[in-house]
């Protein structure tokens, strides 16, 4: 249930940042004995923002790629914030911690800080990509 509360809390943060260039990747993975299968429609609905993509990772491949070696090192109930430029294989998080519900405030601050850098870059360089994105949005 704590994880589901974390999902709802993330939805609140995204709501607060409506219209901002933030994308969320939500990876659901089996950790608890009750995690028999993919997340239910009700669980998925807890994060309904259109900038979110949700994944069911039954083999915990993402957790393993982030350092899981045994049961104690499973990466779950975890939130990480990445700034512009970070790629999947060369990603250094601006913020990464858990449990989600407990670290939501610093995570939110990291998102806002990263957004201010993005906006400043757009203004400073009159960035063509930023301008095009504004038109598309």
């Amino acid at each position, binding site marked *: *249930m704590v*994880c*589901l509360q*974390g*999902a709802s809390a*993330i939805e609140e943060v995204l709501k607060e940042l409506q219209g901002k*260039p*933030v*994308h*969320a*990747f*939500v*990876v*659901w*993975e089996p*950790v*608890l004995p*009750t*995690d*028999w*299968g*993919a*997340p*239910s*429609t*009700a*669980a*998925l*609905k807890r*994060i*309904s*923002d*259109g900038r979110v*993509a*949700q*994944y*069911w990772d*039954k*083999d915990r*491949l*993402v957790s393993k790629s*982030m350092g899981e070696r045994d049961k104690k090192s499973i990466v*779950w*109930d*975890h*939130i*990480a914030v*990445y*700034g*512009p*430029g*970070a*790629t*999947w294989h060369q990603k250094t998080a601006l913020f990464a911690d858990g449990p*989600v519900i407990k670290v939501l405030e610093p*995570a939110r601050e990291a*998102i806002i800080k*990263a957004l201010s850098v*993005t906006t400043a870059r757009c203004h400073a360089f009159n960035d063509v990509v930023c301008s095009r*994105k504004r038109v598309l949005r």
Partner: protein
Amino acid sequence: MTRKALLAISAALLLGAVIYFYGGHTAPPTQPALVDLTSQTLSKIENAFNDSKDDVRVLVLLSPT
């Protein structure tokens, strides 16, 4: 309250919980469909993450129950 009524209420609550935690796997209509990640499809999340590299991204790992 009779024992029968208590049993009926318990059964209804249990059924409700089962439906809530395990019923369907449909993502909200504003989002792409839920993706099953396997070693063959892991690139889907990698590509989606990299495709929006000009933006701020949040990666969240959660358990479904």
